């Protein structure tokens, strides 16, 4: 029983990290209808910039501030140079553009900051904690706490601020938002900047765990099944999806793994996502269109 609980809790906590990555996608998908393939590269870009600054001797707070500034500038540049010229194009065109963007972001990041693996020490020691006889990773617990704080901040932003309400309006019906004089370009800049910051937080947490390196941008591939399971349009869905994937992977590795010779983690999330595509294509909490007949 304690093995089961330990596996489950470990999986759930790891899942919050998946959720964090997925939230970055949901934000952009909701506001501009684009699956932003470049989210992983931006995440890598943020983490790499932070590590480089820190290695260059900049204090943590300063490095964080500069990285945040860089991400905001990046978001504005993306909106100006990529989204605005492509307004009203098909979602596929936009998707291809983000694919291109991901190569540019990776190229720039590695060109300036090198491609070797960098260790990132956030000062969180990963000591195991014991709850009765269940072992919990302290790092995972803190990471989950950070994720929870971020989600609370985002939900306040969306539901309590003027920007947030306009942003949900734009996400819901762009033409109507235009007709009311909402500045869509500014809203997009804000959304991309917020998604960049969410990417930074997840990049730092992932990076602290496995080092900051090129493969960090591949967390995109982990986010995809999370989004399919949770729903592309819902932040709550991203959280639930992340937890389901995390817990599922962890339990499957422990209990089914031995029968299949292990190595379940890389594909389990996709198999689960496939099942969801069959039975619930909008995802667990995805918004289905409200339509009057």
């Amino acid at each position, binding site marked *: 029983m304690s093995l089961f609980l330990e596996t489950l809790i470990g999986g759930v906590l790891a899942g919050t990290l998946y959720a964090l990555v997925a939230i970055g996608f949901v934000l952009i998908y909701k506001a501009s209808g684009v699956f932003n393939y470049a989210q992983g590269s931006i995440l890598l870009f943020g983490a790499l910039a932070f590590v480089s600054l820190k290695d260059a001797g900049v204090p943590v707070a300063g490095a964080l501030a500069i990285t945040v500034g860089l991400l905001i500038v990046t978001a504005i540049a993306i909106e100006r140079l990529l989204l605005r010229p492509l*307004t*009203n194009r098909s979602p596929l065109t936009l998707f291809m553009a983000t694919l291109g963007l991901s190569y540019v972001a990776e190229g720039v990041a590695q060109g300036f900051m090198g491609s070797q693996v960098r260790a990132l020490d956030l000062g969180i020691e990963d000591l195991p904690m014991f709850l009765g006889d269940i072992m919990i990773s302290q790092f995972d617990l803190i990471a989950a706490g950070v994720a929870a704080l971020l989600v609370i901040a985002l939900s306040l932003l969306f539901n309590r601020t*003027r920007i947030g*309400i*306009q942003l*949900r*309006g734009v*996400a*819901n*019906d*762009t*033409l*109507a*938002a*235009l*007709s*009311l*004089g*909402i*500045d869509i370009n500014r809203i997009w800049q804000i959304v991309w900047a917020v998604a960049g910051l969410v990417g930074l937080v997840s990049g730092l947490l992932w990076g602290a765990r496995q080092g900051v390196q090129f493969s960090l941008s591949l967390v995109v591939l982990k986010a995809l099944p999370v989004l399919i399971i949770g729903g592309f349009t819902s932040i709550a869905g991203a959280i639930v999806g992340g937890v389901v994937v995390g817990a599922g992977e962890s339990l499957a590795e422990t209990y089914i793994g031995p029968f299949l010779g292990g190595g379940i983690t890389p594909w389990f999330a996709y198999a689960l996502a496939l099942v969801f595509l069959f039975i619930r294509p909008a995802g667990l909490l995805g*918004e289905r*269109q*409200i*339509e*009057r007949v």
Partner: protein
Amino acid sequence: MTRAVEAGLVRPPFLDVEAIEAVYGASILALHDVSLSVARGEIVALVGPNGAGKTTTLRAISNLLGAQRGALRGGTIRWQGEETRRLDPSDLVARGIVQVLEGRHVFGQLTVEENLLTGGYLRRPSRRQLAADLDRVYGWFPRLKERRSARAGLTSGGEQQMVAIGRALMTRPTLLLLDEPSMGLAPIIVAEIFAIIARLNREEGLSVLIAEQSANLVLDHADRAIVLESGRVVASGPSAELAASGRLAALYLGGADAPTRH
């Protein structure tokens, strides 16, 4: 000029649309040659059958054609003397023109009140101003107050139309462009909505340009009407005259007594 205006000799410019031509996707000609004007304080009806170019005309005025891959190819539109071609939709809303889109387009996932609020932020109002604007709209549409925390997508068609109009009123417009407000609504609800529009016009001096397919309904409330067919203006004049002349009915519109066209 101002003195002439004060003396009532020259009407100050309000909305002037001159010989506009509009295309979709660079090839489909939607408007050939549409000219119209709205004076301050007027209700003008834009009538015509489906596909006549009513929506295109309104979107040309509010600069929303671009969002539908359309464009203005010729002619000029002036709002209070200023040419609008280079203005963004948000500039136009800030200058007092707001459009209520055909099919209402409420933000279905937002509550009724949040929908209204989205219209109110443009002028960066203080909290108190915003609350006052909201109260004003609730004054016009008391039913929205009762439904304020309902999700707009789950309200009735009439309520959604009220949300769409109320949301536009939150921008404090001088000219309201209404696109097919009666679409898909029960006659009694349509009458209620038209009555409110007429009162807004009378009591607040709001000018209105309404596009409507069912002409006899809107002519009761409009001062003047412009008849569009296949992207051209085919008739215009005071609504009473147009209605009396039988010309509208002959053209295709209106009630059950309209003769067929052949």
